[in-house]
C-alpha cells in the first residue's frame, strides 16, 4: 500500500468581527491506497473545514494560512484555487459527497446532465458516451430503471435516492480519493445503513480510498481502518480503529465513548463530558480540553498545548500530557 494523500500542518482561519477563528489549527494526517479512514468530532471541531481545505473550497472570509497537502507527489496548496490543475483534481481525482443531498444537487438541471458534466469535463467523453455511462452509473448505485430516470430532476427523487445519485456522481470519474462529509446524517437509519454499505462497496469496486467524516462513532467503528479524533481544530488522538475503541487514551475520546448510549449494553447511567466546547476565537494557550477534562494535572494548566506523542499501540498518538489509567472501554 502506497501513501496516497498526506496533509501536513494544515491551518485554516476565518476572519470575523469577533476575531480570528482558528477552524483548523495544525492538522496532519495521511491516507493510504485502498484505505478507509474516519475523521470524528463534534460540530465546530474543524473536521469539515479540513476536507474543504484539501479541495481548496474555502472562500472569504476563510483562508488557508499554512500547511501542505501532498497528493501524487505534488503539494495541492501550491496550486491556485481556480487554476486548471486544481479544477482537474476537484471532482476528477478527488471527489466529495456532501451532507445534504437536498441542497448539493442543482434543482434546475436534470440528473443526467449533472452526472454527464464531470464525465465530459474530466474524461473528455462525447455527449452520447457520457449519457451511456451516466445510465450505467445510476444502475450501479441501485436506481431502478435508470434509462427512464436519467432525465428526471432532483425534486423527483427521495432523500436516499438523491444521496445515491451523489455517490454515482462522485465516483463517475473513478477518483483516487472519495471524501464523504457526514454522508448519511440527514437520512433515516435503515436508509443510512443501505447507503453506507453501497458507498463502501463502490469504493472497493473502484479501488478508491475513502475519508469518512462523521460525528457518529458507530459508523466509523463499522467501516474505518484508522481514526482521527478532532477537538477544537486539532487532532487529539489517532490510531487504528480497534486500538482507539479498545484503549482510548485521550480524555476527550474516552469521554465521547462513554457518553453515547450503546444498543448492546444495558442502560447504565451515561457519563457525559461536562461543560461546553471552547469558542474558537479565543482558544487558550494550554490544552483546549483542559476546562472539561476530568484527568487534568498541575502540568496541564501551566504548560502550552501538548504536541501529539506516541503511546503504545500501532501508530497510536495522543495530544495529552497525562497517561490516564488503562481501563478497557467495555468495562468502564
Amino acid at each position, binding site marked *: 500500500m502506497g501513501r496516497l494523500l498526506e496533509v501536513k500542518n494544515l491551518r485554516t482561519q476565518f476572519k470575523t468581527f469577533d476575531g480570528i477563528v482558528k477552524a483548523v489549527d495544525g492538522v496532519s494526517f495521511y491516507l493510504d491506497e485502498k484505505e478507509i479512514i474516519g475523521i470524528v468530532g*463534534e*460540530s465546530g471541531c474543524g473536521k469539515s473545514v479540513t476536507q474543504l481545505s484539501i479541495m481548496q473550497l474555502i472562500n472569504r472570509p476563510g483562508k488557508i494560512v499554512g500547511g501542505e497537502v501532498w497528493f501524487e507527489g505534488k503539494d495541492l496548496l501550491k496550486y491556485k484555487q481556480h487554476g486548471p490543475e486544481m479544477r482537474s483534481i476537484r471532482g476528477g481525482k478527488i471527489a466529495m459527497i456532501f451532507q445534504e443531498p437536498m441542497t448539493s444537487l442543482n434543482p434546475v438541471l436534470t440528473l443526467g446532465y449533472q452526472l454527464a458534466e464531470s464525465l465530459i469535463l474530466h474524461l473528455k467523453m462525447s455527449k452520447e458516451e457520457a449519457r451511456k455511462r451516466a445510465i450505467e452509473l445510476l444502475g450501479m448505485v441501485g436506481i431502478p430503471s435508470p434509462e427512464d430516470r436519467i432525465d428526471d430532476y432532483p425534486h423527483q427523487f*427521495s432523500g*436516499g*435516492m438523491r444521496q445515491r445519485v451523489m455517490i454515482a456522481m462522485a465516483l463517475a470519474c473513478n477518483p483516487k480519493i472519495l471524501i464523504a462529509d457526514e454522508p448519511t446524517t440527514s437520512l*433515516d*437509519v*435503515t*436508509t*443510512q*445503513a*443501505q447507503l453506507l*454499505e453501497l458507498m463502501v462497496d463502490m469504493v472497493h469496486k473502484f479501488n478508491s480510498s475513502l475519508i469518512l467524516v462523521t*460525528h*457518529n*462513532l*458507530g*459508523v466509523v*467503528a*463499522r467501516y474505518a481502518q484508522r481514526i482521527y479524533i478532532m477537538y477544537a481544530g486539532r487532532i487529539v488522538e489517532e490510531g487504528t*480503529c*480497534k486500538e482507539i*475503541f*479498545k484503549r482510548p487514551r485521550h480524555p476527550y475520546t474516552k*469521554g*465521547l*465513548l462513554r*457518553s*453515547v*448510549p*450503546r*444498543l*448492546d449494553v*444495558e*442502560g447504565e*447511567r*451515561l*457519563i*457525559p*463530558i*461536562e461543560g*461546553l*466546547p471552547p469558542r474558537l476565537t479565543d482558544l487558550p494557550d494550554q490544552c483546549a480540553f483542559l476546562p472539561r477534562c476530568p484527568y487534568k494535572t498541575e502540568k496541564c494548566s501551566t504548560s502550552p498545548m501538548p504536541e501529539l506523542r506516541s503511546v503504545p499501540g500501532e501508530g497510536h498518538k495522543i495530544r495529552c500530557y497525562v497517561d490516564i489509567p488503562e481501563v478497557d*472501554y*467495555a468495562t468502564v
Partner: protein
Amino acid sequence: MPQSKNDVVLEVKDLKMHFPITRGLFRKVVGMVKAVDGISFALKRGETLGLVGESGCGKTTVGRCISRLYQPTSGEIYFKGKNIADVPEKELKPLRRNISMIFQDPYSSLDPRQNAGSIVGEPMVVHRLVKSRDEYKEKVKHLFEIVGLNPELTTRYPHEFSGGQRQRIGIARALAADPDVIICDEPVSALDVSIQAQIINLLMDLKSEGEKRLTYIFIAHDLSVVKHISDRIAVMYLGRIVELTTPRELYNNPLHPYTQALLSAVPVPDPEVEENRERIILEGEVPSPLFPPNGCALHQRCPIATPECSKTVPPLRECSEDHWVACLRI
C-alpha cells in the same frame, strides 16, 4: 395509590389522525395522508414509553394528538380516566397544564424576543400558579437550578445560550406548570454527542428525583437513545405500532422483521462487536403514507413476506408476556 385504575395515567385507544390533501380553489379533498392509523397503548404513572420509527412513521403526530395540538380524526385518549380526544379548544387549558411538551429544535422553539426567565415562567402566569411577583421570581430561579442552569441567567435571551442550554430552558418551561406527562419530541437529536448525554441524564434525574413521578413519552429515531431511557418501546412503521415491549426483550428477542432490520441498522461504537454482527438490510424505501400498501405496510420490503401479507392487516397481539407484535408470520 389508592386504586389500581389510577395507576394508568394515559390510555390511547385506536387513535387515528388523517390529514386531508386538498386541490384547487374549492379545496376539494383529493386524498388522505394516514399519518396515524389505529394506535393503542396505555401508560402507567412514572413510566417512560419510547416511540421509535423513521421519519414519516407518525411518531410525532401521536405526540401532538395526545397534547391536543392536533384534533385526532378518531379514537380515544384517556387522561386520568377522562376522554380528552374531543374536548373543545376552549376547555383545553387545564389539560395543557398537565401534559407538556419538549420540542426537537432548541433553536426555533424558543421565542427570540423573550428572555429566558419569562420563557420559563410563562406557563405559571398563564395557569395562575403564582400569587406574587416574588414567588414567581423564586420559582423561576428554582426551575433554573433544577435543570442545571445558573439562576443569574434569567435575563439573557435565547441567542446567548448554546444548544444544550437552550434545551435545558425548554425542559424548565415544560416543568413549570408541574405536569403529569411530558412529551419529549426528539429532545436530543439536534445536539452534539457530548451534550446529548447531559440532557438524557437530566431527563432521567428529573423523573427519579422529583416527588411527582413524571411520565414521559419519549419520541426519537435513535434506537440506542430510546433503549437507554425507556421502560417500554413502541416501534412504529407507517402509522402503526409494529412491536411493543421492554427494551431488553426488544434487543434480545426482536420478533418483527422491521424491528430486526432497525436494530441491525444502528451501528455500535465497537469494531469487535461490529465485525460479528449480522446485518439485515431492507430493500427499497418507506412507502408514501399517501398510498400505503394493502395488508401489512412492510410486505414489499419484508424478507419473510407471504402472499397473505399483502391482503390482511396484521393486528397487534401479545406473543409472550408484555411483548406485542403485529405480524402474520409470528
